[in-house]
């Protein structure tokens, strides 16, 4: 995926000068003094934490919001005056897909093809190409409402790409999309860019941002910097290291993150990756990493620079550590399933899924969209009745067990399902209440959560008005309130920015240190690295089950000497595809 050379003298498709956008009844402007350009034949990445103003900027460019101040010119027109002219030549994919759930895949495509004036003769090849690309050929007659989250997103993208626009605005197109689709998506957009169109791509995946020709980094409505990503990456040069750790890597990471010298730290399988502050030194021994371990310098990534530019990961240990009682680890598995099968008519969504998760482990469920990961997940927490096989959590079959058994699990849904019109405090109290906490215990649990997650200033805000990152934290707090033994997390960081994700994993690590078990599904491959073991589910079956490092090792080859988790994911799926049908499993 190399970047195409692109001369700077191409006239910009979008020019933004001194843009400000204020919404009534808010103190801080959503955007303030923004200068930006999007050029033809380039991908411009728009990155920044939640609430930075990415969506607002895209909407202003798309002519869906008017600027309060400043100049905006899109394709030679002012969006405040001539939005129609812009819409004729601009593709836009909003965050919420923009699909009609009652319409089938092909009906959605035809609708947008008509709306965008794709002529009849071009239609068949265009549909064919887009369906092949999005891997939706098999589902053309399925209703959009019945597609998995990732498939919806793909279809939404296909709809935005229909008329080969001059300018493509993508608002977080890859949220909830699996790595394979993301790569394909990227390749496709790249192809479009090669034809000369300009793309503005807002994203929370910083490995994507790294591949952009140019990035705009926003924070709290202001632009922090812009330019080619490597320029920013250069700022953390020679400050990035990995540390090989064999035991207690979660504890060591937690200790490291408390040091002032450490700006960022994540787990990568059996290693810990650290970003150090300029000029500061770090001693592995100081965090108990043991003698013989040494810091190995590695190439900086855009993500490192991003975290650095935003001032690093918040310091401090997760307060979860002090708050929770440790769980006695015994031999009995926390989660086990045997030949778990789910059929919807002829379609086998989960096919004889078998695994077992010991206590105190983070277990990841990975897989492409629609592979059966959500189905398996839902059967485990008792939301779906299996067609065959058994699932036991903490020794209980949750579908049949008494309601007390469900007291031992926590569940955090994909969409951070909270009661939007209740305040933070009321949401916390509600979830404490339905898990049977009362009186003093409830008050304590709620105030503990307020403290751990720093909700002090927000307790009386309606949770629907919180930024996404806060919602996610609140959803997590709600699922932890009753100190569950097993925690189910369904794409818990989907659409959340890297800093909030770091914080999230700090809490998860602390939980696991206390002997809790975590089952997680995710599309972020760097998050899969946090897992002790990972099950890769594809076409309803478990095609691989091992630790992240083992998975990576299993796909090592001469072409790819040091595969990433994403490489491993893609290689394993491909390998499974190549096996003759029937012989697999």
């Amino acid at each position, binding site marked *: 995926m190399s970047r195409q050379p692109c001369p700077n003298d191409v006239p910009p498709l979008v020019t933004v000068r001194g843009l400000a956008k204020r919404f009534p009844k808010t103190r801080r402007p959503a955007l303030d003094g923004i200068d930006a350009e999007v050029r033809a034949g380039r991908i411009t990445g728009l990155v920044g934490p939640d609430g930075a103003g990415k969506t607002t900027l895209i909407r202003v460019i798309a002519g869906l919001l008017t600027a309060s101040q400043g100049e905006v010119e899109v394709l030679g027109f002012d969006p405040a005056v001539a939005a129609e002219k812009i819409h004729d030549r601009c593709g836009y994919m909003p965050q919420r897909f923009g699909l009609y759930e009652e319409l089938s895949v092909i009906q959605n495509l035809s609708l947008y093809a008509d709306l965008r004036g794709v002529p009849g003769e071009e239609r068949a090849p265009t549909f064919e190409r887009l369906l092949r690309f999005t891997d939706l050929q098999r589902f053309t007659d399925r209703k959009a409402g019945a597609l998995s989250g990732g498939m919806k997103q793909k279809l939404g993208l296909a709809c935005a790409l229909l008329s080969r626009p001059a300018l493509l605005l993508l608002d977080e197109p890859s949220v909830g999309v699996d790595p394979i689709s993301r790569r394909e998506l990227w390749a496709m957009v790249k192809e479009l860019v090669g034809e000369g169109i300009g793309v503005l791509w807002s994203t929370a995946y910083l490995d994507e941002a790294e591949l952009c020709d140019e990035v705009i980094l926003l924070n709290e409505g202001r632009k922090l910097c812009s330019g080619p990503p490597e320029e920013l990456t250069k700022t953390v040069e020679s400050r990035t290291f990995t540390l090989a750790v064999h035991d207690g890597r979660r504890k060591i990471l937690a200790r490291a993150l408390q040091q002032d010298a450490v700006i960022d730290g994540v787990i990568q399988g059996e290693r810990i990756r650290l970003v150090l502050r300029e000029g500061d030194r770090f001693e592995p021994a100081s965090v108990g990493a043991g003698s013989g371990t040494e810091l190995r310098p590695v190439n900086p990534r855009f993500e490192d620079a991003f975290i650095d530019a935003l001032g690093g990961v918040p310091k401090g240990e997760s307060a979860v550590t002090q708050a929770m009682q440790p769980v006695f680890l015994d031999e009995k598995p926390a989660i086990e399933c045997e030949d778990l099968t789910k059929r919807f008519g002829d379609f086998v969504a989960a096919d004889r899924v078998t695994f077992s998760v010991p206590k105190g482990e983070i277990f990841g469920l990975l897989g492409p969209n629609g592979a059966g990961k959500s189905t398996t997940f839902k059967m485990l*927490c*008792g*939301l779906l*009745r299996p067609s065959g096989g058994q699932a036991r959590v903490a020794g209980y079959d*949750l*579908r049949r067990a008494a*309601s*007390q*058994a*469900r*007291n031992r*699990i926590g*569940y955090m*849904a*994909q*969409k951070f*399902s*909270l*009661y*939007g*019109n*209740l*305040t933070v405090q*009321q949401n916390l*109290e*509600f*979830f*404490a*209440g*339905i*898990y*049977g*906490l*009362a009186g003093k215990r*409830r008050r304590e649990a709620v105030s503990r959560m307020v403290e751990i997650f720093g909700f002090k200033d927000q307790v009386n805000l*309606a949770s629907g008005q919180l930024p996404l990152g806060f919602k996610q934290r609140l959803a997590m707090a709600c699922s932890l309130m009753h100190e569950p033994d097993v925690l*189910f997390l369904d794409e818990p960081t989907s659409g959340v920015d890297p800093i909030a994700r770091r914080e999230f994993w700090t809490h998860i690590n602390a939980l696991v240190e206390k002997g809790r078990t975590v089952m997680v599904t995710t599309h972020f491959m760097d998050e899969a690295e946090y897992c002790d073991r990972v099950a890769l589910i594809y076409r309803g079956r478990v095609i691989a089950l091992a630790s992240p490092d083992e998975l990576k090792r299993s796909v090592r080859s001469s072409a790819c000497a040091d595969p990433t988790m994403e490489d491993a994911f893609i290689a394993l799926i491909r390998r499974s595809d190549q096996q003759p049908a029937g012989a697999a499993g």
Partner: protein
Amino acid sequence: MWNRLKALILKETLATLRDPRNRVALIAPPLLQLLVFSFTGTQDVKDIRLAILNQDYGQPAAELVQRLSAAPNFSQVYFVQSPQQLQELIDGQRVLLNVRVPADFSRRFYANDSPVVQIVLDGRKSMAAQIALGYLTSIVQQFSRDQLQPADPGKGVMSVEPRNWFNPNLDYLWFTVPSLVVIITLQVSMNVTTLSVPREREMGTFDQLLVSPLRPIEIMIGKMIPAFFLALFDATIFVLVAIFVFRIPFHGSLPLLYFSLVVFVSSVVGIGLLISMLCSTQQQALLGTMAIMMPALILSGYTSPIENMPEWLQAVTCLNPLRYMMVIVKGIFLKAIPAEVVLANLWPMAAIAVGTLSLATWSFRRHLA
């Protein structure tokens, strides 16, 4: 279990009442409806417009016409000269009915040869027209009684002394206001319950409830109680408005009324939850509510007495909780009906409540599968 339930009830209540707009929306429009519809629900026909064509010159005809034009319910009387005019007035809906006194009326009257007056009614408003016909008929009857020679008074005569108990002046407000108290209470409790599950489904919080230790029955109760109290609260306001604003007499026992309201609201909430469980979107729930509420209203005895319906339809009304509550509310307000009569109307509602709630819980469990 009690703690879980308490949390759920608190949440449902807050979710309904936290938004000030919601609070207003749950109380103001129903109250407005009570005030406006109390007056629209009348089947008393006043201000009737009437056209008269008198083709007879005799004294009895003149007397009859004079009586008709003086009657209080006939607010405007047109005297016309030709049958054409009569027809035009009816066609254009200028009058509700017209009267023709034929040329031979007086002759026949004196000859005691069944004199006739011809009435034409506007069938487009047949309900009002029939009531107007009733008034007219009684005026005509009174006329023929009074024409009896006063020479032979007494012996062999008989008078009929009409009296109306419970509502001496047959004031329609006394009928509509108590009826509307329960109809609007029904509407409020349906609105709150039917949308609740589809809304949670659309928000994604329903799964969250399902994985929690809450039992299906607890979720049902949690959704029921707030709707329940809201409905009772609204009903209280309506009862107060009925007594103090509309001055409807209240003769019965207040505790008995409340006990009945409790049973009634339970049965309505049961129906509401059942709809709620069966619908997957808010649109379906709202339209489903309509599809239930309109027949419920028709079959309640409010728009027309149940006794007038064909028997098989009367049997259908037994499934309608509104039917029983109508009897109770009017009975307690106006008639001070004894407890055993209330009870006879209570147990069917209780049975409906138990039936719908168990069905709703059952479909809840089935949905989980």
